């Protein structure tokens, strides 16, 4: 698997390689370190010190203020993300199952049409979607955002499951069918139990996408129904009063922590989803 080159490299170049890799690690980490340091400082400390100076006093005041400002929106994001992730994953699994094992005339064409959704610039659907949400009485509600995320998440969730199921041997399903097992029985008894990895990939992908969404949030919600990303943007970009950078950074951390946590816990699936979605989509 590894390239068998280690011995071929003289040691100065290996030192150089490590130095470059380490430098990159530092550069990738700096913004996170700065955010954390700033979030635990007092505003006076921020103006006298610099980005990487250690807090004179470590204080949680920034976090407390940030949480009291954004906590409602944090819950909105949960109310939007959890159902949208579950529903779009469930539909994606069923779609993928049909598109790989129960193909019919036109199903391939449909898959092609659906795939385009992975590239669709959402700007081309924003207006009609907002008219529709208005007609449905879902404008500026978290339910409306759930609906939008389900609809425009389908392309990726279906793609994940379809590509995963395509590699499962046909014989398995055929045998079950000859034994008289029906569509849903086969899905529940045979397909679903072997789907754990792709379910993880799909859940994590959708969670990251929907939690991090800003465009749908800012267009389809207002006031009390806004997700955390919109609230964070509002907080950071309001020009009234003195800027409290500690609060800004704590709020940014709060908005970023759920996805960071998922990445740390299930990074393997995160990367697999990225590359699967990427290479194919």
């Amino acid at each position, binding site marked *: 698997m590894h390239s068998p080159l280690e011995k071929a490299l003289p040691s100065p170049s290996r030192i150089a390689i490590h130095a470059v890799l380490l430098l990159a690690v530092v550069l990738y980490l700096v913004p996170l370190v700065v955010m954390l340091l700033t979030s635990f400082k007092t505003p006076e400390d921020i103006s006298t010190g610099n980005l990487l100076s250690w807090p004179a006093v470590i204080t949680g005041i920034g976090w407390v203020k940030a949480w009291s400002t954004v906590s409602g929106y944090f819950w909105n994001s949960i109310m939007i993300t959890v159902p949208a992730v579950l529903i779009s994953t469930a539909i994606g699994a069923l779609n993928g199952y049909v598109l790989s094992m129960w193909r019919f005339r036109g199903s391939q064409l449909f898959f092609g049409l659906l795939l385009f959704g992975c590239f669709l610039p959402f700007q081309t659907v924003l207006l009609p979607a907002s008219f529709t949400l208005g007609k449905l009485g879902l404008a500026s509600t978290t339910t409306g955002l759930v609906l939008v995320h389900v609809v425009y998440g389908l392309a990726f969730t279906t793609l994940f499951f379809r590509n995963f199921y395509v590699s499962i041997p046909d014989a398995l399903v055929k045998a079950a069918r000859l034994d008289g097992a029906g569509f849903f029985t086969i899905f529940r008894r045979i397909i679903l139990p072997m789907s754990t990895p792709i379910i993880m990939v799909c859940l994590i992908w959708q969670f990251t996408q929907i939690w991090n969404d800003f465009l749908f949030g800012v267009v389809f919600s207002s006031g009390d129904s806004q997700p955390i990303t919109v609230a964070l943007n509002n907080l950071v970009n309001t020009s009234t009063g003195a800027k409290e950078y500690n609060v800004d950074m704590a709020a940014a951390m709060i908005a970023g922590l759920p996805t960071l946590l998922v990445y740390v816990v299930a990074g393997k699936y995160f990367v697999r989803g990225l590359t699967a979605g*990427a290479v194919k989509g």
Partner: protein
Amino acid sequence: MTTATAQLRASPLDALQRWLPKLVLAPSMFIVLVGFYGYILWTFVLSFTTSTFLPTYKWAGLAQYARLFDNDRWWVASKNLVLFGGLFIAISLVIGVVLAVLLDQRIRREGFIRTLYLYPMALSMIVTGTAWKWLLNPGMGLDKLLRDWGWEGFRLDWLIDPDRVVYCLVIAAVWQASGFIMAMFLAGLRGVDPSIIRAAQIDGASLPRIYWRVVLPSLRPVFFSSLMILSHIAIKSFDLVAAMTAGGPGYSSDLPAMFMYSFTFSRGQMGMGSASAILMLGAILAILVPYLYSELRSKRHA
């Protein structure tokens, strides 16, 4: 094959079984036809109307497109996209490839290092933008840090400089996405047959040369996928601008996605906003169609 087995026994229950897959797919088909293609068409129609704050269906011909091309802000946004996209893609690719090649040299703790390169990808562009807005803050951010560290003449005020503000977007976007490119190339490198490298070494080629001449050219598909994804990110970039600059100073850091949003939803220029959305779609298609074409062709040849 499906129909053959099902037709063996044609009881009503079997008929239902035969229809089930279609029934299950039906809602998604509806969603795709209406929510994807129907809505695109709707937006397309709107771009030919005089719509302002509310949609009206009074035909305006190409007037909205003409207005768009007369609009200085649209040109700034488009030029910014070329500059931002070009730099973002090029720098992310270079950094991604270099880090992937270096990480491929049997580095201890490779997994851990990889994790640290990739974590920004898990963050929202709003969080990224917020962080970099602070880092690039003139007077308080890196600007001050490097002066504090003894570099007296250091100045970094790009965020408020209309001529340089786009570079700020590039820096933040590269920070977020380059680790992802690294991951894609590293996965590609792991698929390269080691015997090719060994053979080239026996021929006396130096390692950098082998990578440059043999290994990297074999990763063409990864290169094109990365190019595709990065340009897609660039064209859709909206959150990053919103969080970092809101398009400013003035509209010097505007991008088409931001332009579309503010004209459609804040300025009540629905017709012109729709026209700009359609042009964004055109840009995506201009990249997507050749890509898919070459993908399909290479599959047929394979």
